[in-house]
């Protein structure tokens, strides 16, 4: 069966069996291995991708279900060589150790900030409640998302104000 979708802004297509899961299409057919397979039973969130902007488990979706959709994977987060705010947040706040859950956590964080620009601790914890991390104890992931939210808000400030803040020596 022919499927086509926009993945990280580029048109991608393939000829696959209907039973192929989205995660396998992304990893095997498209070679984008940043999307991980953790539990393979819809429990861990390591396979999180955004479909039409919504975080979903790509191990629990058929590739044919998202035919014609917009898909974003972890590879689509950075703009060229520049890290995205969510990546800076995880870097600065030590939001990862082994890194296995990180692609999912970052996509969840980015989507949350797009919906709720200044999320509370509780909102972040509920947002990542479908994503399991066995290293960090989640504390630094929460801080990383908050860090990214601040960066995103700052980037949106008018230039004059931003300069004033920079001058303030934050």
């Amino acid at each position, binding site marked *: *069966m022919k499927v086509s979708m926009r993945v990280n802004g580029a048109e991608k297509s393939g000829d696959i*069996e*209907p*039973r*192929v*899961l989205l995660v396998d299409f992304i990893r095997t057919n498209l070679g984008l291995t940043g999307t991980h397979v953790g539990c*393979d*039973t*819809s*429990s861990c*969130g390591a396979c*999180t991708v955004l479909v039409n902007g*919504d*975080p*979903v*488990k790509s191990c*629990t*979706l*058929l590739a*044919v*279900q998202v*035919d014609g959709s917009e898909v974003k994977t972890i590879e689509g987060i950075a703009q060229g060589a520049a890290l995205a705010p969510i990546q800076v947040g995880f870097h600065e706040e030590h939001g990862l150790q082994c890194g296995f859950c990180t692609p999912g956590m970052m996509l*969840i964080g980015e989507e949350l900030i797009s919906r709720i620009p200044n999320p509370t601790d509780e909102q972040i914890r*509920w*947002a990542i*409640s*479908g*994503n399991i991390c066995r290293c960090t104890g989640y504390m630094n992931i929460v801080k990383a998302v908050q860090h990214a939210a601040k960066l995103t808000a700052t980037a949106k400030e008018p230039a004059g104000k931003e300069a004033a803040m920079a001058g303030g020596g934050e």
Partner: protein
Amino acid sequence: MFPAAFDYAAPATLVEALALLKQRGDDAKIMAGGQSLIPMLKLRFAQPALVIDIGRLPAMNGIARHNGHLSIGALARHVDIERNADLAWLCPILVDTVHWISDPLVRNRGTMAGSVCHADPSGDWGSVMLALDASLIARSESGERVIPADGFFQGPFTTTLRPDEIVTEIRIPMPGGPAGGAYNKLERKVGDFATVAVAVHIELSGSKIAKAGIGLTAVGPTNIKAVAAEKALIGHEPTEEVIAEAARLASEAAEPKDDIRGTAAYKKDIVRVYVLRGLRTALGRAREVKA
């Protein structure tokens, strides 16, 4: 894990979907969000010859009030209920419940109607449908049928839906007087299936309970409507004694089994406690409503 091979169709219209379903009947499985079906396909518990994906049919995801009832389209996702500002005051039990359903990722794809039709005895919506006295609207090539939730659940993963029918809508009657509901769920960790959960809904007339609905989750082969407990409430003032008796009767209606989530005796007692708590919350909410 891969599902066993199947054919896949994504009809463009409901009419097309119904024709295909009529033709293939028992060989086919309807998929909306796929959040229950796909795990079952992967485990090969389900091996349909054909999956009919209705997930992208147009105009079936609305949530609206019509002629005394709340209409929820079959493709309304859990997240659509979660973020609907009107439901928070129109029918707060729905918002209570939705937060307990799996996790945000599953709620972004899964649908209420799909979950009800899946008929997992541990499913949360089934009990809420029983408590609210909801109905399912089923369409087939031979027409439309209104199926009350009471009686819909026949056994684990088994309902009275016919092989040629698709549920297109869920209808929840809007209360005639001050009303309130609550959903309480005990789970081992966020997103887990219920150890026990209880849905309660009451409607007041003056100082007395005019209508009562109690649905029990994960304590039997289906979601259970605790009929004797409901009867013990209807027509009575909601005193602590009346509530305690209803809780005792609901606990008797539960048929749990010992498993990794707890013993049967423990689960029966949780039913009692959650009916008590749920009724107190529901009464508080009903009394807040200006009749």
